[in-house]
């Protein structure tokens, strides 16, 4: 009878699990003091423009392919008219999370953490720092995985599936970007009107808001479309020829070594004189930096609240403000509690034979030329077409030669890597 009772309770209690919703970007929301009403309204607008994890919407403004999204979205293994759906929830969701915020159940235990798509910033791409990745860039990541991380290769999936997933990643990025844009739009231009009333974010009612929202969206989409033309093409004239004599190569490597330790390229400051990645290590990448700043501000607020509370000479205005701040603090604390341990960005150990962003010489060139978006790694090439460059293509190719020779010069085989953020890994 015991077991029967149990079975019934369980069955009734939890058999119906409603489809998972998109999570909001609470860090942005709270740091931009978005009120609960606005949060709800933003959620609704996003719901209108992008739908839900189960029924994604592909507005033609976004230029996303509805069928591809349909294939990626939805519950895993769900099948609609003979078409496999739910690819994302079958292959990706455990780490990258339902909203693409890198907060899937497994994500917290990975080092590095899974990518948060919502800023539209991706590290390994062939375009300039400020640009989005091209479809091919994302495709390449899915095909080759990211060695040195928990990201496996998906090259064995049918090409169509990989394409659908790429499309879905873009979809999640755009959604996240629009969310951020809406938040700052609300902060900058809505809020109380002159006589203290609240201006709701309701595009349905207000054609002007519709206009604006579509503009924000259009800017985001434009970036993504522009990226396809922003791939960095090395200068033909300076590309080393394929049939170089060993002497030439050695010379180039030597040049690269000089640059590596020199003040122009400055590689050694972070990757260390030994190239084991043991140089500058107390910076954060942008994803962690946002949280780090949020954390610091929260602590500062807490501190000042303490101090002010301790003072007894309080006029009612400062009293009121203290109360206000206390509520803000409570909100911020809630968000802080959801953080994973914040980790420093660790420069790559260059003496391992594999490279996270791809094994091709071109990949290394891109990393050095454009830097790695979202990380402390600066670009040494032009920051945009025709802009001034810190290093010439030729110099960058020398660096490429040097970097690719590093794993094979002693003491590389004993890949004695220093991991400084010991205390940060769990």
């Amino acid at each position: 009878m015991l077991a029967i009772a149990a079975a019934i309770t369980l069955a009734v209690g939890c058999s119906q699990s409603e489809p998972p919703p998109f999570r909001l970007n609470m860090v942005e929301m709270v740091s931009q003091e978005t009120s609960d009403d606005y949060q709800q309204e933003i959620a609704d607008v996003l719901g209108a423009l992008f739908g839900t994890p189960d029924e994604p919407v592909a507005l033609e403004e976004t230029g996303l392919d509805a069928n591809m999204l349909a294939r990626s979205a939805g519950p895993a293994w769900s099948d609609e008219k003979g078409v496999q759906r739910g690819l994302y929830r079958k292959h990706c969701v455990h780490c990258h999370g339902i909203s693409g915020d890198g907060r899937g159940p497994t994500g917290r235990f990975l080092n590095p953490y899974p990518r948060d798509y919502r800023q539209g910033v991706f590290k390994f791409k062939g375009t300039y720092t400020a640009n989005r990745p091209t479809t091919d860039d994302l495709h390449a990541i899915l095909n080759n995985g990211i060695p040195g991380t928990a990201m496996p290769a998906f090259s064995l999936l049918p090409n169509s599936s990989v394409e659908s997933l790429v499309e879905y990643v873009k979809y999640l990025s755009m959604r996240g970007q629009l969310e951020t844009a809406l938040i700052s739009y609300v902060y900058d231009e809505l809020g109380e009107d002159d006589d203290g009333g609240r201006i709701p974010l309701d595009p349905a009612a207000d054609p002007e808001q519709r206009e604006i929202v579509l503009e924000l969206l259009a800017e985001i989409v434009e970036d993504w479309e522009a990226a396809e033309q922003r791939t960095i093409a090395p200068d033909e004239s300076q590309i080393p020829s394929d049939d170089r004599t060993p002497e030439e190569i050695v010379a180039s490597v030597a040049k690269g070594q000089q640059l590596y330790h020199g003040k122009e390229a400055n590689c050694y400051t972070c990757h260390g004189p030994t190239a084991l990645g043991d140089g500058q290590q107390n910076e954060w990448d942008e994803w962690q930096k946002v949280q780090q700043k949020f954390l610091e501000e929260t602590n500062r607020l807490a501190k000042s609240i303490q101090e002010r509370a301790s003072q007894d000479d309080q006029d009612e205005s400062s009293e009121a403000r203290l109360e206000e701040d206390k509520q803000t603090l409570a909100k911020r604390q809630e968000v802080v509690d959801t953080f994973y341990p914040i980790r420093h960005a660790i420069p790559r150990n260059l003496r391992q034979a594999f490279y996270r962003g791809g094994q091709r010489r071109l990949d290394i060139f891109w990393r050095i030329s454009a830097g790695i978006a979202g990380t402390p790694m600066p670009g040494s090439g032009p920051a945009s077409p025709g802009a001034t460059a810190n290093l010439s293509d030729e110099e960058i190719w020398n660096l490429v030669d040097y970097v690719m020779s590093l794993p094979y010069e002693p003491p590389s085989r004993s890949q004695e890597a220093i991991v400084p953020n010991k205390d940060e890994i769990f």
Partner: protein
Amino acid sequence: MNRFWGFLFFLVPVGGVATFAAAPYFNIWLPRDISEHGHAIDHLFFFILWLTGVVFIVTELVLFYFMWKYDAKANKKPAKFTHGSHSLEVVWTIVPAVTLLFIAIYQMDAWASAKMRPPLIPGTEEMISPTVEVTGRQFNWDFRYPGPDNELYTQDDIFRTDGKLYLPVGEKVLLRITSADVLHSFFLPNMRIKQDVVPGMEQSMWFKAKEKGGYDIVCAELCGWGHYKMKGRVFFLSRAEFDEKLEAMRLEQNTMRVAALDEED
């Protein structure tokens, strides 16, 4: 109810045999063997399968017969009062002992050739140089080809992380296998070959494929949450195609022009 139990137990040999008889028709059977040594293993498998199968059927039938015959409800003969038979004990100790010993010895050659006789350079005592180094990591199989100089751990090595392994068909290949983090197990069902990879241990495995085509690479040792993600595929190509592929991969790794990307896949 009478003698129902005997018949219930009769279902065991019937069902057991039926399952194995039916399985091939649902294509639930040993995967197609494309390796040179595989048939030896399959042969041994089926040898044991038949042997144990016979023992299984006989014993289960005997059990059924006894249960049916000596059912107290039906069998009015008083029970025999016996403490056993020495000669019988001797028989059913010696016979299985000999059989088992025979099986053991019968296996040894196949085992030795699979695990103890690496392909050697003719006339020497040293192994042939490895065709590829396989590295298991959480959660992917990474492959490293020696490149033109046919020597691993030099700068012209070709490093692939896309989980696709290319090997020449019809010749003995030597794989150096290792792990970057935890235990994995490099398992090629169609090659009848499996070897755990242990971090810090240099291990090799070798085989010869008889047929071209693509086959699964499976990880057969629990390696963490993503164990199931460690899917790879091995493609056996003719020597010519293989060299071509190697060259293509080398060129891709040396890509320096964006234009070159468009030709790729």
